[in-house]
């Protein structure tokens, strides 16, 4: 179970597979396949009807690709420093690797830069 931090409409997703890895564990920057478990409620936006399209980009039960952007398990950087976040979070992407949402709500790990996810990095408010 991961948090989804973009505005694609998913709030909590469940990881069902890690792509391009023999091991079963994903870390920051890994592409995973997820099932949307909980939708984000865009209460005021839905009422206004202005951004219904944004809110309905994904639905509960959808199978999507995603990129892990934060992990509770510490990651060692090349300079010997470790980084660890308090939660596991991901960003939904489509099959081509472009993010589905248009903005991210919180920080992402800068390991994404090494793994060529610069589109997600440019959406993020900050990266550490």
């Amino acid at each position: 179970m991961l948090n989804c931090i973009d505005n694609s409409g998913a709030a909590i997703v469940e990881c069902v597979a890690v792509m391009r890895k023999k091991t079963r564990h994903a870390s920051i920057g890994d592409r995973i396949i997820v099932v949307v478990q909980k939708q984000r409620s865009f209460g005021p936006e839905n009422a206004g009807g202005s951004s219904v399209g944004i809110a309905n980009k994904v639905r509960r039960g959808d199978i999507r690709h995603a990129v892990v952007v934060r992990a509770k398990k510490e990651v060692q950087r090349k300079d010997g420093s470790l980084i660890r976040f308090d939660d596991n979070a991901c960003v939904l992407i489509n099959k081509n690797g472009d993010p589905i949402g248009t903005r991210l709500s919180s920080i992402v790990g800068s390991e994404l830069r090494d793994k060529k996810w610069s589109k997600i990095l440019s959406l993020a408010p900050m990266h550490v």
Partner: protein
Amino acid sequence: MSQPLASRLSTCCWRSFCAEMRPQRQFHRSMVTLQRGPVQKLDVPSDLPAQLLPQFPERYRPGRNRRDIVVHPSPRSEAETCKDPVGLVENRQLSVLDPTGARARLFDKANPDRAKVGDVLLTTFKSGEPVSGVIMVIKGSGPHTSVLLRNQLTTIGMEMSIKVHSPLVQSMEIAQRTPKRKRRARLYYLRKPEHDVGSVQKVVDQYLRQRAMLTGGKNARQGGTFRSRKGKK
């Protein structure tokens, strides 16, 4: 047909005859060994012709002592020449990584003004990005010393372990000292939501403002990059 049978019979008889003979022969032999006693070893005669010598094993040839075991002198112990090799290497590395010794003093146990757990530390990397947080743990010693900083960025808790003597670290400053001495050496309880200190961005901002006032606004920009990026969004 009858001939092999006869031969078999004859071998049978021969075997039984032998079986009767055998115990006698064994008895005879044992008597001989009893009578002979220990074998007396003879020295190699000194006036042996030279062409017979190759028939002897090497240790029996003249000029070879039978008990000639070579005892080598033990090699010089490196542990005695250098009592503390690890300390030597560490000192050498520290002199390279931290020539002024300021960083080592900041985390020196003997220094009363050292950085302690619970302090808010502002670290700036060579690349210019600042990382701030409450010191949870000071780990290791010598050039391996590392600090674990905890902070909240956009309400997400983040911990970063930084090597104090890393050549990538530009500066380490204490933005705020802990008001009360912490009774733990490692403040892992800060991970629990009820003990979390939250974001230290305000403290760091205030410290940077004060420092800018004192130093004449030289480093006022430092540490503000996070907020500027947030503002862009």
